[in-house]
């Protein structure tokens, strides 16, 4: 993969160090996301995928290094500029994060009503179009509690694209989905990306599904990118770590055990004695 020219790059993460509760999460992370692509960022749970999205969205600041989005350093933006940048970013949270006191229709209308002065008739047209694009125009009057997990995520997706963003960030869009709604979501992400001219960042540990739609894949572990490339390049990787991850083997370079004292010592009360 060739790094794009600077105009071609939407997100550039450069040497990011970030620690949480004294424990390093990122230790010199570098990656680039080019415009118009679907980029997958994969890694086991707890590697900091959600943290990375929060750094890109400016909810967290790196301890060192820079996160550039559309030519702006996110951590340096004032509140007003940061909010203007976020208006052009759609985020799909792990939980969907729909507003539980609003109907499906009002959830999708929410960003339009907050950020535009469009007349209600036009908002209605836009909302119905967005809902149509995720196949849920008929569900407009339901409340979030009445939706299945897959439907909730599609509504959240319709909301995320309501303002025609530049970029959509997906946090684990496939977890907890049955195979059918998983397939729906996978195709939807790709289709919306191409039809709306978006750039998509999909963070996930569902290797198969994510790899199927990604143009570029980054695998992160231990706070760094350990492998990057297309799906075929990754499948051909010789790194034992990547092979373990892509094939889902339980033990390998990534240990099954969380670091712990020796079991025998532990059982004999090593610490307490």
């Amino acid at each position: 993969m060739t790094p794009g020219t600077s105009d071609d790059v939407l997100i550039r993460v450069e040497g990011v160090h970030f620690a949480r509760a004294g424990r390093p999460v990122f230790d010199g992370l570098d990656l680039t996301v080019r415009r118009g692509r679907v980029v997958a960022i994969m890694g086991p749970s707890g590697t900091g995928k959600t943290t990375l999205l929060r750094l890109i969205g400016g909810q967290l600041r790196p301890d060192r290094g820079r996160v550039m989005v559309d030519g702006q350093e996110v951590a340096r933006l004032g509140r007003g500029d940061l909010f203007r940048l976020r208006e052009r970013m759609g985020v799909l949270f792990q939980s969907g994060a729909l507003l539980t006191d609003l109907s499906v229709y009002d959830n999708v209308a929410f960003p339009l009503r907050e950020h535009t002065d469009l007349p209600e008739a036009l908002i209605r047209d836009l909302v119905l179009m967005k809902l149509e694009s995720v196949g849920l125009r008929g569900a407009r009057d339901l409340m979030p509690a009445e939706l299945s997990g897959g439907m909730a995520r599609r509504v959240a997706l319709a909301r995320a694209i309501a303002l025609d963003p530049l970029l959509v960030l997906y946090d684990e869009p496939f977890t907890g989905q049955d195979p059918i709604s998983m397939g729906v979501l996978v195709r939807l992400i790709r289709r919306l990306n191409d039809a709306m001219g978006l750039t998509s960042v999909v963070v996930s540990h569902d290797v198969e599904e994510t790899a199927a739609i990604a143009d570029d894949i980054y695998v992160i572990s231990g706070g760094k990118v350990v492998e990057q490339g297309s799906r075929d390049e990754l499948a051909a990787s010789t790194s034992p770590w990547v092979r373990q991850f892509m094939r889902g083997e339980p033990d390998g370079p990534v240990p099954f055990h969380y670091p712990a004292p020796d079991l025998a010592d532990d059982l004999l009360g090593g610490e307490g004695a």
Partner: protein
Amino acid sequence: MNDGLAALGRWGLGVFQRLGRGHLFLAHVLAGLPTLLPRPGLVIAQLHAVGVLSLVIIVVSGLFVGMVLGLQGYNTLVDFGAEESLGVVVALSLVRELGPVVSALLFAGRAGSALTAEIGLMKATEQLAGMEMMAVDPLQRVIGPRFLAGFLAMPLLAAIFSAVGVFGGYFVGVGLLGVDDGAFWSQMQAKVDLHEDVYNGVIKSVVFGFVAAWIAVFEGYDAPPTAEGVSRATTRTVVHTALAVLGLDFVLTALMFGE
């Protein structure tokens, strides 16, 4: 001994940190209130939720408190042959003390805890973080209307409580115990002072409303985003509001009526 001291120190620091966060939070919320001016619908919806939530309990409690006041007051006054003053006793107790204080306590239990739980759950389910990522400030959009609604509802609820309470006292005193109808009202009219009594009562309920609404929304916003965190925060709202209201009531009473 040293451990105990260290724990005490940590606890103290924690308390002051929370106090600091609470005040910064309040400043931020107050600064965001003007953004609600063009959108009164947001506040009205919350006013409806908070007010209607509390209305039944306020009316029923007000009625019973008034009836008890009528009964107790009559038993005391009749010994001095002063049962005609029953209206004054009932009205003064309600307007000066029981109206603002009891309705604030009921408000904390009914509406304050609901506000805390709602905001805490919105936080736990990433709704607030989601809003921030949609470039909407939850302090302006979610907290502001709820705070303002709680603050505005409190004096109204206290007024309803007192009014219903007076009728409770009237019902027992005049209706059941035979106090003279005209004397009940005319004595009340003559002895209850608009400035001294009614305004001071209103000031109390305004202060209590401010504090109760502040505690409720802050506890929700500051709750750890877990089931346990939200449930503890809900309890804290009720306990802290009760303590704050009773403490402030003493201070305000001393300032207003103490010589």
